[in-house]
């Protein structure tokens, strides 16, 4: 989903940076408030950030015969919200822009809007929609992650379509062209990412349920019910 340095006219670079900045500022404020209040959350933030680091470094082959990488932002979005996630995503994008020539400083605004902000916002919407329903929490995690991943690529297609409307058909036609490149490739990757992060979430529920309850990611009841399903795992662990 990286838009390469130089491939976006400066006007659009400016626009997307402008869109991204408020999120970054809110993220820094929220992060500072959280650090001051309770450092107990830091390990969980580490896990969420670690997944963004790992998954966005993995370029996986897809059905379309090209490679792309998952984003891993879903977990962080559920636990810490959109603003803090945007900071973590921005750190990854900065690393890739400075050292890997994947994206660049001028296009980083646009890349942040797709990966660190847009995807998480969509994921957060799914999360809020499903949070207090009877839907199994792992299914929720799967959907949030997969949606955050997919929407990231849809937004990239949209950003490019806006900057480069096709001569015939305009923005819509070029959106379709970019959508075919980015979003279709991403569908299988989003499914894999959703499964893997749901599994990780299961291990967090097993090891550190109290932190999820304290952050109110899911209610105590939901966590308790999920733990009951996995309780055989716990007892067998205890025996070994």
């Amino acid at each position: 989903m990286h838009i390469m340095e130089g491939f976006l006219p400066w006007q659009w670079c400016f626009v997307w940076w402008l869109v991204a900045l408020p999120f970054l500022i809110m993220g820094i404020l929220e992060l500072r408030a959280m650090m001051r209040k309770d450092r107990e959350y830091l390990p969980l933030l580490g896990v969420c950030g670690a997944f963004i680091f790992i998954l966005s470094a993995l370029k996986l082959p897809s059905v379309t015969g090209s490679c792309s990488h998952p984003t891993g932002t879903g977990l962080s979005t559920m636990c810490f919200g959109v603003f803090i996630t945007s900071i973590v995503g921005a750190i990854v994008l900065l690393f890739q822009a400075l050292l890997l020539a994947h994206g660049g400083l001028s296009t980083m605004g646009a890349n942040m809007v797709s990966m660190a902000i847009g995807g998480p916002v969509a994921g957060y919407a799914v999360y809020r929609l499903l949070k207090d329903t009877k839907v199994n929490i792992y299914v929720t995690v799967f959907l949030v992650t997969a949606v955050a991943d997919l929407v990231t690529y849809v937004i990239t297609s949209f950003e490019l379509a806006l900057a480069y409307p096709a001569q015939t058909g305009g923005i819509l036609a070029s959106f379709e062209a970019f959508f075919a490149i980015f979003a279709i490739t991403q569908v299988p990757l989003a499914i894999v990412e959703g499964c893997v992060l749901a599994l990780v979430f299961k291990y967090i529920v097993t090891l550190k349920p109290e932190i999820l309850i304290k952050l109110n990611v899911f209610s105590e009841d939901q966590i308790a019910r999920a733990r009951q399903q996995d309780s055989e795992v716990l007892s067998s662990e205890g025996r070994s």
Partner: protein
Amino acid sequence: MIGKYKLELITGIVLIAFIAIFLYVSAGGSHEFRGSDDAGSQKIAELTGHPVESFTPLIPQYVPPSGEIESTLFALQASFGGLVLGLVFGYWLGQRKTSSAT
């Protein structure tokens, strides 16, 4: 027995299916598996009518001199994530063991 490992099982099946699809697609032979980012850049060149090389960085940037260096840096990024992940899960596991011992 299957109940408690349901999620692991599903993830395993999805991973196997993913690999199978990859093998099937790559056996076709006509795909180079290049990055979708580059495909995107090429599409831009196509739409604007300017060759890819004519897009120069607005802000000068460091470009890894070879694919080897690039993969090193990507591995570095992933291993940093893996390090933090192992550290935290190990820390939590240790916490749980000690608290259940007392």
